[in-house]
């Protein structure tokens, strides 16, 4: 007989689904200190970004959003609070230097940012755009008290929407950029304004350990505008053994009802700045019938990650994302996309094209989310990789998460080499093999650039030049390819 034993009820164990991320103590302390020292005009934005950062934590190896990236390379740059806030003052580039980076079309609308700091001396804006550091962007006192309150109220509403977007962020570098950017800039296109010329944002980096920048775009209802973004590195002839910098830029945009924005970004460098790293995030909220066309073209770097967080939040919104990357050497170029259809009748298209040569590494990690309510959504994503070498690597992770039941969604990914049949056709007409390969490679990438604008648009030509000439320079046989003039050398399908 066994004596009744004392029954001990085991204390129920709480299974935690995930370990809540905690910022490293030094970073947490720096975040708090930074928040405490923030000017009133920036507190809201920074609190929102800090709250996101504390929720997300820093990326770790194994993090799903970073499956194709060596997080170890990033962490030394992200784990510190330095950002541009603690950076040394640096000399401004000369006006002459800057002019070489300005698209002719945008000569009257230029915003220059140096390591995340707005440089009014080198910037100029005319007419269609309103540009100001965020902390000075609240409407000034008006002689009419009622009007003053009204504008203050509108501004506060807008800022709270921006703060909501920041708070919902899922990208640690983007949150860091918003939190530590020392001088965020607000670019506003008034409602119903059809901007005649584009506005250029020129991001200059001096190779700081990490330079954070935050740009906020507000496209007013039924406005129409174009933003051309260009990234350049100062001090090209840098010591190759010197420390590499990390450029960390977050661009947030709200497109009001019926607004249309073309956002064209170029991160092409032919310099030794390939040692730097570039993290770029574009977050856009599209309201009813708003339209976004985003084209980004780059040639990679030690690590380039272009991330898109796109929310179609109004019915009938339409978003188009195009990425073109040409990678050689050991450069890396990664795209990350999270595009959400939150309401019915949205349409979106994505096309990412990457040329990977040598030992380059590329990835596209793209998710389309269709919310339960978002019926009649039409979403598509295409990922195409052209592999020019056996040692190059390209990963594609297209994903669809569809909660609605009446939608049209498609996605596809390919990786391949140049088509020998096409190559023979060109050669049979007398083109040397290198020129034929170069032509086919350029044609491959050109499709993704085609959306940058109508044929003949000067920016398109500039982008074509920058990327395609860079591509030609990287390809064998570039010597025999014709040098591109304004109307030649660039195949337009």
């Amino acid at each position, binding site marked *: 007989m066994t004596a009744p034993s004392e029954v001990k009820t085991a204390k129920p164990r709480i299974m935690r689904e995930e370990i809540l991320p905690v910022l490293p103590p030094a970073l947490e302390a720096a975040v708090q200190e930074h928040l405490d020292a923030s000017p009133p005009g920036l507190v809201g934005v920074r609190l929102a970004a800090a709250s996101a950062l504390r929720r997300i934590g820093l990326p770790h190896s194994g993090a799903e959003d970073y499956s194709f990236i060596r997080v170890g390379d990033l962490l030394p740059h992200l784990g510190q609070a330095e950002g541009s806030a603690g950076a040394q003052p640096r000399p401004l580039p000369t006006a002459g230097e800057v002019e070489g980076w300005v698209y002719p079309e945008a000569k009257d609308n230029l915003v220059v940012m140096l390591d995340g700091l707005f440089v009014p001396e080198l910037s100029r804006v005319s007419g269609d755009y309103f540009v100001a550091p965020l902390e000075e962007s609240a409407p000034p006192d008006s002689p009419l008290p009622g009007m003053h309150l009204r504008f203050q109220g509108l501004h506060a509403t807008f800022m709270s929407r921006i703060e909501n977007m920041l708070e919902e962020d899922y990208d640690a570098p983007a949150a860091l950029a918003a939190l530590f950017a020392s001088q965020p800039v607000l670019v506003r296109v008034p409602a119903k304004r059809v901007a005649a010329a584009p506005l250029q944002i020129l991001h200059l980096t001096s190779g700081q350990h990490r330079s954070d920048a935050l740009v906020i775009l507000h496209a007013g209802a039924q406005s129409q505008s174009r933003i051309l973004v260009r990234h350049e590195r100062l001090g090209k002839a840098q010591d190759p053994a010197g420390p590499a910098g990390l450029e960390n830029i977050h661009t947030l945009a709200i497109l009001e009802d019926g607004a249309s924005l073309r956002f064209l970004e170029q991160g092409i460098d032919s310099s030794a700045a390939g040692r730097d790293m570039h993290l770029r995030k574009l977050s856009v909220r599209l309201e009813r019938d708003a339209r976004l066309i985003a084209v980004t073209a780059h040639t990679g770097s030690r690590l380039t990650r272009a991330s898109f967080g796109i929310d179609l939040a109004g019915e009938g919104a339409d978003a188009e994302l195009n990425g073109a990357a040409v990678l050689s050497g050991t450069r890396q170029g990664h795209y990350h996309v999270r595009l959400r259809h939150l309401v019915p009748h949205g349409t979106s298209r994505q096309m990412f094209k990457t040329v990977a040569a040598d030992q380059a590494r590329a990835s596209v990690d793209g998710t389309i989310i269709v919310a339960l309510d978002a019926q009649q959504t039409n979403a598509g994503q295409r990922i195409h990789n052209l592999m020019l070498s056996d040692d190059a690597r390209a990963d594609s992770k297209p994903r669809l998460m569809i909660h609605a039941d009446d939608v049209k969604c498609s996605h596809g990914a390919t990786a391949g080499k140049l088509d020998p049949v096409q190559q023979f056709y060109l050669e049979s007409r*007398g083109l040397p093999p290198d020129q034929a390969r170069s032509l086919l490679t350029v044609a491959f990438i050109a499709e993704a650039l085609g959306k940058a604008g109508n044929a003949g648009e000067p920016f398109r030509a500039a982008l074509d030049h920058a990327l395609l000439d860079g591509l030609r320079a990287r390809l064998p046989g570039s010597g025999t390819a014709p040098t591109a003039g304004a109307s*030649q050398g660039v*195949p337009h399908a």
Partner: protein
Amino acid sequence: MTPMLEVKSLIAHVGEGESITPILKGINLSVKAGEVHAIMGPNGSGKSTLSKVIAGHPDYSVTQGEILFNGENILSLEADERARKGVFMGFQYPVEIPGVNNAEFLRMAYNQRRKAEGKEEADPLDFEEILDAKMKELDMDAKFKERAINEGYSGGEKKRNEILQMAILDPALAILDETDSGLDVDALKIVAGGINRLRGPAKAIVLITHYQRLLDYVKPDIVHVLSGGRIVKTGGKELALEVETQGYDWLVK
């Protein structure tokens, strides 16, 4: 006079290793400047292979024989080198190349040929004039300048584009592989007009065709029948008519 094209005991294979298949089994062909030859033959006889081997297609290996162009053996030359020397092949199935502008490509090819001849390259404006004139001759819409090579063209448009390329490059030797297939009579007349314009004392043309129809518009000097990888009969243009009425069986057996 040295023939412009001389094919001697040519044996060619496709594939490699165990899957290697002989296609041409000893071809002899001699084409003089000023002549138009027609090569006819049933499906699978090796007509297209012959044109591709002469043009330098990398999928075919020549194991025996030689191909002389103006007395020079061109077998060791790559396709692009042959093209720059003046050999042109019109494709049976012209290749679509999205993203490569047709006019742009034509200018590149034209300038490569000019360079090879030691002439100055044409600038875009000069070339445009040349192109416009040639396109007019072929009744081609100006939109084909803006479009990508062969992308979305109808069958007839593709063939016309081949003839346009030929007209621009002005080759010494043109080998046209079934350029007539898939054309209606109006398009056929236009294409034939383009071929006849190339004809001249310094030019040689080889028409590869399954049907006799094209030969009503481009009169050949010599007609060959190719079967089983060999030329089984050579004659005048009356041979084409015989083939048309009697088929190939009497020649093959």
